[in-house]
């Protein structure tokens, strides 16, 4: 194993330039830069994300979302943060257990307007306009697989995976099948130089987004550059009761899977109860954006030192 950095001088300069560009972008728009703790008392209940535990019983955060929403509830106004986040077990060509996230919140924005701002930011940082395609989660599945992801049953999702030669093993939930098909059969086909905004995720994958009035879809979007997932955003859920139901459902799913329970963030819940202003928020993977800007094939080429243990 080499002591040398994985990123060359050019990649280090690109990172420094990008960070400067992001700060200039938000400063010009009156969005305040903030910092929140990396080391937290409470963790992320999302069963698909594993936190690093710290020896004092706390967690390294997997996202600054809860703390930033506490700032919003306290009246911070528009805010952004560039920080390291930590997700255990995520390592690969496009993943590193410790990575840099840009997260920002805009008061009065909905998901559509925030997605536009994500595209503007990427184009500003890239120094050029890029081909853009807007579509919905449902449209993607219908076009690529002839399946309606909102209504299809598990059997037909499994059959579509089978037709594509995918047999991932047991214990697949309906959402797991959707994730499998999206990540193996749909997004790999996105044209390399194009930005794709995918909107209206199924209600079952709402995460912290509010539901549309139809109840079937959520005000959640993702932005891809080529086949690479760059950003995930929501028209934020402000309903405290609904927020509690979702966290309880995540805890129940953790129990069902035999995963350790995670201490939910009581301060965050109290802040939602106090009143989160109407806003939209998004998180963007800075390392992945650097990969696309510099044509890197592996995340290790844009990070000085990756976790190779």
């Amino acid at each position: 194993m080499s002591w040398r950095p994985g990123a060359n001088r050019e990649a280090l300069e690109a990172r420094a330039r990008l960070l400067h560009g992001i700060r200039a972008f938000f400063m010009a728009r009156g969005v305040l830069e903030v910092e929140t703790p990396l080391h937290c008392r409470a963790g992320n209940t999302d069963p698909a994300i594993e936190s690093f535990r710290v020896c004092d019983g706390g967690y390294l955060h997997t996202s600054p979302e809860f703390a930033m929403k506490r700032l919003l509830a306290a009246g911070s106004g528009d805010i952004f943060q560039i920080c390291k986040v930590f997700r255990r077990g995520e390592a690969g060509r496009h993943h590193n257990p410790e990575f840099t996230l840009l997260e920002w919140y805009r008061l009065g924005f909905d998901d559509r307007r925030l997605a536009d701002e994500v595209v503007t930011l990427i184009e500003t940082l890239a120094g050029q306009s890029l081909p853009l395609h807007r579509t919905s989660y449902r449209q993607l599945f219908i076009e690529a697989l002839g399946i309606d992801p909102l209504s299809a049953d598990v059997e037909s999702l499994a059959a579509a995976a089978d037709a594509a030669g995918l047999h991932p093993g047991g214990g697949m939930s309906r959402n797991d099948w959707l994730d499998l098909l999206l990540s193996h059969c749909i997004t790999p086909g996105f044209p390399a130089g194009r930005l794709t905004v995918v909107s209206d995720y199924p209600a079952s994958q709402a995460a912290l987004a509010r539901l549309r009035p139809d109840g079937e879809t959520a005000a959640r979007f993702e932005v891809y550059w080529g086949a690479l997932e760059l950003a995930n955003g929501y028209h934020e859920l402000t309903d405290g009761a609904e927020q509690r139901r979702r966290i309880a459902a995540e805890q129940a799913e953790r129990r069902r899977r035999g995963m350790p329970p995670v201490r939910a963030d009581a301060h965050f819940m109290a802040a939602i109860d106090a009143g989160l202003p109407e806003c939209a928020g998004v998180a963007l993977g800075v390392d992945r954006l650097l990969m696309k800007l510099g044509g890197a094939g592996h995340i290790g080429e844009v990070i000085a030192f990756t976790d190779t243990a």
Partner: protein
Amino acid sequence: MASYSTNEFRGGLKILLDGDPYTIIENEFVKPGKGQAFNRVKVRNLKNGKVLEKTFKSGESVEAADVIDTEMQYIYNDGDFWYFMDPNTYEQIGAGPAAVEAAVKFLKEQDTCTVTLWNGEPLLVTPPNFVELLVTQCDPGVRGDTAQGATKPATVETGATIRVPLFVEEGDVLKIDTRTGEYVSRAGK
């Protein structure tokens, strides 16, 4: 039965799929930011060399294949089996035609080969990356033909025929790259 979790997947790991031993060539971690993680692997079947892609739900376990690589010396061939000896224990083991198929044209007695054992049985024999073999038959180079890159066929002591430069003569010892089957240089006589 030993098994590996997908988070132990890495190049070179030997796993059992549908009863056959495979080696992992590539392991790609695929995970939506919010959602289920998968491991997409490229694997090679150690019995027939076929490469295929498989996707596992991350966290699943896969049975380990009891496959180990050992360095053994090739001793002789009795017509049915090729015999190899463990240099430490002097234990001998016979490999059948399927295991030596790709290696046989470069197998020279006394050479140390990598013998891949599956449940203790030879599965695959890999010759050293470079071997030195005696030319037993080749035509004389055409006088005056000095064209760059011109080659002719030569047969070596193990029976393999390779392309060699025109100056090579019968009785020369050649260094050959067994991975490509190509001539490298003339070894000292």
